């Protein structure tokens, strides 16, 4: 197993900080009856996230933002 220490720390650390936002809302929110307003808001998340990801992939990363990214 050729796994270097620094890479192992990167993997463990990034896995942990990715896991927490993934599981926390599911574990906490699924225990409560959420208010209607919040559910109505959450229902729009799928379309909103997918549209944003598509725009980011196709419009920003491949075109207009090249100059922006190189600044920071």
């Amino acid at each position, binding site marked *: 197993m050729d796994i270097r220490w620094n890479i192992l720390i990167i993997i463990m650390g990034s896995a942990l900080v990715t896991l927490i936002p993934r599981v926390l809302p599911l574990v906490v929110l699924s225990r409560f009856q959420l208010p209607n307003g919040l559910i109505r808001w959450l229902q729009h998340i*799928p379309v909103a996230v997918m549209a944003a990801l598509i725009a980011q992939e196709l419009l920003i990363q491949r075109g207009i933002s090249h100059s922006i990214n190189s600044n920071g």
Partner: protein
Amino acid sequence: MELNHQAIQKDSFIQGVKDCVPTLLGYLSIGFAAGVVGKTSGMSVSEIALMSALLYAGSGQFIAAGMIAASSPISAIIFTIFFINLRHLLLSAAIAPHFKGLSSWKNLVIGSQLTDESFGVAMNHVASGKTIGYRWMLGLNMTAYLNWLLATIAGGLLGKWIPHPEVYGLDFALPAMFIGLLVLQLHSSKKLWVPMIVALSSVLIVIGASYIFTGSMGVIIAAVLSSTIGAVIQKWTSDGTS
């Protein structure tokens, strides 16, 4: 009795596996590309496999490879990946009402394998009037997870012969998959114009935000704002009844 039987059949592991199939090409090609990029950045195949097994997030793994190649500090890499994957907070919250009453442990298992794609498939399932259960979600997630793991390992093994994976158009598999999931989501909506406005405002906000914020922050801002727009429109047009 008949109804019960159908409900049980719907929440089956096998059905979850089947419902994952349309997204497999995306997982395989993106995973392969992630493996190639990992190899190019100097990671070993074991490191690539461990990263896929534990981190299990495409965008995070691409960024990790890029930053490792650039010899960025460990703390900066971890913080950047945290930021990029923060949108899972929204996905996890949005899917939570559908797993109400499930034990914390089961919710933890589902959440740990939540991706943009599995979330998209699950929410399309909901939008088309079907219910999602624990076993179905597990079948969907496990299939995606295994394919991702194997694809990144394959990319790591073959990576040295493919220095520029983007030449083969593999990087277009990701947006293609998101477009497919979005179209399905819109297709199953009752009032089409509301999600259309949400999608359009999300696109405009993420483009606007890209001039000020990093890409992942832009996605979060766009998702939060355009969902709010959608919720407000829905409240106005339906007098509070959803």
